[in-house]
């Protein structure tokens, strides 16, 4: 919650302004009964109808002022809530974009999504409500206490004495209830996860007739959520009745004590009557305060979840490291890597690539091919060893400079719901010509031009309206469009037919002479023409060299090549 108060701070003045107006409006509301009392006690006895009308008019004026002030203040409050939420959500998203892959793995994507949405909605609601109800209620309570104090200090003490009990009730109940809401949120995340799985896997589910099974699975999480929410609400529902009993028992005490005092001649019955009406005002106000409290406790669970992300520190810091003179463009020096500090995913990866040399990586599934790329781009830091580009350790290159060297297409990369050209441009300052050139070289221009609105065609989220091959072509075009120093294609052409795949490689060699190509593939034919090839197995480099030397020295590589190309081996 602490970080959230920092977000409120800039708006304190505006909130204060709203509070003053709200205060004014509440006072106007409070004035009305006072005027009525005055009319009854002092104006009516004069039997002057004109004066009655004058006071009636004054009451109406007060009503109008109260109307104006309350609407005005409410709108101010909504404005503050809006600006606050905008800030929080903005910073949260900025933070999310700044998280390292490791942190993303830990927090998980669905959970981040719900923090950015549901949790910020809760905050929005709370900040608005607190301002709208939070001023009026205390004023009514305070005003009530002050007036009763002047009326009858002793009876007032009884009233004041009940307040700590109320506070204690609210505190105890919410201390039990709030954690329940936090765990509720976790169950809701689980529910959302199940729904997401079902939406994305609907084809498989239908094909395997697992609908009933999935229904049962959903029912189970649905039941857990409902049970937890019921439990949490049962607890929170205790507050109101307990408060009611406390306040009303206090009221009874006031009558009894008041009766004694009237009997003793210290007090008058009229004061007790007045006391009772103020008591009602205070009761209603207290009710509103608890309502606020419930909203607050719900929101504080959300606030904690938001804060957890906001307080994450950047974990891939740029370090000051000496620059070595080196003949090589890209170097991996005895790199070891592990995701979880336990089993090594990559072991002793050591290779050196000169400027303009191209690199191919081939190997079994799970051999660690993609991980090499993730390390090179510094999504993760190596566990030991070092990675250098132009003699500079990548840990000493600032993120922007480092990332701008790359054009990359990952396995299963993302198509965004936007136009074709925006998907290729991807926010960079590239003109239409550069886009269509990239599409041409990425083998995408042909199918794009056959789309209904060509480059303006809107693509669905995740490229739902494209085939696998079409997606890959757009992604490759995206990677090419920036004329990167290093182009990485991680299994990026697996859905392309051989002919297109070959044409793509030719286009890259011909039109991007300054670009160092790194290609991960499962087909020997995709990488055989590259200058340097790593054969990976179980996280280790089994052999490296060019196609010809690997054909000679590496059995596994030769086996692969033969099996894939039916014995037609071409020397390069």
């Amino acid at each position, binding site marked *: 919650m602490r970080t959230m108060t920092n977000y409120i701070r800039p708006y304190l003045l505006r909130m204060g302004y709203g509070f003053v107006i709200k205060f004014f409006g509440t006072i106007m509301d409070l004035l*009305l009964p006072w005027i*009525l009392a005055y*009319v*009854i006690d002092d104006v009516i006895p004069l*039997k002057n109808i004109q004066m*009655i009308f004058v006071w009636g008019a004054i009451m109406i004026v007060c*009503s109008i002022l109260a*109307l104006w002030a309350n609407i005005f203040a409410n*709108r101010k409050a*909504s404005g503050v*809530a*809006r600006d606050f*939420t905008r800030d929080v959500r*903005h910073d949260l998203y900025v933070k*999310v974009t*700044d998280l390292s892959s490791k942190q993303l*793995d830990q927090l998980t994507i*669905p959970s981040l*999504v719900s923090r950015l*949405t549901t949790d910020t909605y809760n905050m929005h609601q709370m900040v608005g409500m607190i301002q709208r109800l939070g001023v009026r209620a205390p004023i009514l309570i305070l005003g009530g206490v002050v007036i009763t104090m002047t009326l009858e200090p002793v009876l007032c003490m009884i009233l004041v004495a009940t307040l700590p009990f109320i506070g204690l009730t609210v505190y105890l109940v919410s201390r039990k209830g709030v954690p329940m809401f936090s765990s509720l949120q976790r169950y809701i995340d689980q*529910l*959302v*996860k199940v729904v*997401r799985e079902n*939406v994305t896997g609907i*084809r498989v589910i239908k*094909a*395997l007739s*697992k609908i009933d099974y999935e229904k049962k699975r959903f029912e189970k999480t649905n039941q857990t959520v409902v049970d937890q929410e*019921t439990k949490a609400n049962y607890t929170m529902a205790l507050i109101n*009745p307990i408060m009611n009993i406390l306040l009303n028992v206090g009221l009874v005490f006031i*009558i*009894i004590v008041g*009766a004694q005092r009237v*009997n003793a001649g210290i007090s008058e*019955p009229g004061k007790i009557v007045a006391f*009772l009406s103020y008591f009602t005002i205070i009761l209603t106000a207290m009710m509103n305060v608890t309502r606020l409290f419930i909203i607050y406790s719900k929101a504080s669970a959300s606030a904690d979840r938001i804060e957890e992300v906001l307080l994450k520190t950047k974990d891939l810091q740029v370090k000051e490291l000496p620059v070595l003179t080196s003949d090589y463009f890209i170097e991996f020096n005895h790199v070891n890597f592990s995701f979880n500090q336990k089993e090594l995913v990559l072991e002793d990866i050591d290779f050196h690539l000169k400027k303009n040399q191209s690199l191919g990586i081939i190997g*079994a*599934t*799970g051999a660690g091919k993609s991980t090499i790329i993730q390390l090179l781009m510094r999504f993760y830091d190596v566990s030991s060893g070092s990675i250098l580009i132009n003699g500079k350790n990548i840990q000493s290159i600032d993120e922007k400079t480092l990332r701008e060297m790359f054009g990359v297409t*990952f*396995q299963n990369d993302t198509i965004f*719901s936007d136009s074709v050209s925006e998907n290729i441009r991807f*926010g960079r300052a590239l003109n239409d010509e550069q886009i269509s050139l990239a599409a041409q070289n990425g083998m995408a221009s042909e199918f794009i031009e056959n789309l*209904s609105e060509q480059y303006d065609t809107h693509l*669905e*989220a*995740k490229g739902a*309206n494209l*085939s696998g*091959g079409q997606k890959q072509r757009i992604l490759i075009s*995206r990677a090419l469009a920036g004329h990167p120093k290093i182009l990485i294609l991680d299994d990026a052409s697996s*859905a*392309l*037919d051989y002919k297109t795949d*070959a044409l793509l490689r030719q286009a890259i060699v011909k039109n991007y002479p300054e670009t160092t190509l790194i290609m991960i593939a*499962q087909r*020997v034919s995709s990488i055989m023409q590259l200058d340097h090839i790593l054969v990976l197995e179980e996280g280790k480099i089994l052999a490296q060299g060019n196609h010809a030397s690997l054909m000679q020295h590496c059995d596994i590589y030769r*086996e692969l090549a033969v099996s894939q*190309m039916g014995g037609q081996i071409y020397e390069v």
Partner: protein
Amino acid sequence: MKFNAPKSANQKTLQKPKNTKYVLKRLSQYLLHFKWMILLAIVLAVISNVLALLGPMLSGKAVDAIELGKGMVDFKTVFYYCFIMVIFYVLSSVFSYILSILMVKISQKVVYQMRRDVFNQLMRLPIGYFDTHATGDIISKISYDIDTINTSLSNDLIQIVASLITVIGSLGMMIAISPTLLLVFCFTVPLSIVLTKYMTGKTRPMFSKRSRALGELNGFVEEMVSGQKTITAYHQEQNMIERFDKQNENAVTAYYRAEYYGSMVGPTVNFVNNLSLSLISVFGAILFLMQHLSLGDITSFVLYSRKFSGPINEAANIVAELQSALAAGERVFKLIDEAPELEDCQDAVVLENVKGAVAFHQVDFGYTPDRPILKKVSFEAEPGQTIAIVGPTGAGKTTIINLLMRFYDPLGGEILIDGQNIQSLTRESLRKNFSMVLQDTWLFEGSIFENIAYGKDNATLEEVMKVAKAAHIHTFITQLPNGYDTILSNDGVNISKGQKQLLTIARAMLLDSKILILDEATSNVDTRTERQIQAAMLSLMEGKTSFVIAHRLSTIQNADLILVVQDGNIIEQGTHDELMALNQFYASLYQAQYS
């Protein structure tokens, strides 16, 4: 999957008459299931509120006993009424707690039912719905929207009941005091109704807009966070932040607009009440001067008029919540009302004892009627044959599979299995006869065992291990800390795309179906592993009619029939040798592999 819907498909669905009555009717259908519980809740609400309403009357009686003044207080009466008051208040509180519990129960039951209905509906919807709607949008309906309804149900219903009782109770009291003075309300009540109606009309669309804006934000966030790695790789954080800010701005502005008008309701109703008070003061004073009323009458009338209007004020606060609930309800019901996958035809038969003969006769299809994907496609496959479908991307290969499994229905022509039109079969029995491995592997969060055994009920560990071995994934699984019990987490880094595909191959191997679909089934498996599982794949295909889509022509050379698809037509069909001899498109594709 392939789909070329016009981009407006998403936006169009949002425009719909805002039908409050309809939403209310649908909501009440849910509540009707719990009519006895609701009745009990209403009884409890009545009792607890009547008890609370009696409180002031009792305290009045006690005060009367005090009023006699110094030394004359009737303590016996005071204690008597105080005692009754305590009992009444305690009872009222107890009842109100029971009431809360009951309402939580009811609303949770409704929410449970509603979530279930939405989910079941999702399971009934045609594949086309998922191809055209963003996942985040669907999810926001089942979580955020239903949650909004939930909040409203559990809080607002009691409030409304309580308000009604208080209003009726105090109205009765006021009639008893002075029917004449009650005439004031003839002016203010209609005024408040008109104002409320006016404001409701104004705020309702705002709340719908808010719902929509939040849905869009959900979709956007989902997309962006999932694509985070790509964004980082291209260093587009700043750019995405700007786009996010725009979405964020839309969301908070829509929220603000809704509140801007929504928060007028409370003060306005309050204003009407204050107006009533002013009028009561003036006319009460005049009536008093005409000696139609006593001072005490005016005082109690004012007190009761406060009680009378207080709940109306409260109810007005609820209006805002109710409105967002209605807007949310509209979105939820719209999903529930979405046309489900067409019912199986009435005399649909269960597909049994399949041999596996498949035929397409003059099949036409397009995802939208104006954009044909397949044109008059015909071919025949005999039981046990392997049919390979090749062709450039976008030619319609996957569409053939979509039609075969009835994820979509053809616009013309017919598809036959063992001579029966597949539209005359029950979908479930039809699909049960297929097993498939797709390019987009799908695994769920569950153990590896559960994932492999997914298609076969009561599969044993032995069976699962057998297919895992055949799919060459067994060794990998046993190396995991928990072996077959390892939980696959959605975003887990512990398993590669190729391994995922091997798991789905193992899953398919476990099935006992006559027709097999391999849509780029080994595209993510490296060739070495692919060769190792070749034998297993062959035994998987044995005795089954298999449809194979693959880019690696080496895997399809041995097919009994190769269909070469281009631009929605089958331009060549035959065996590998026949097509090579033909020396046209297929031959050129084949040769291009090794260029």
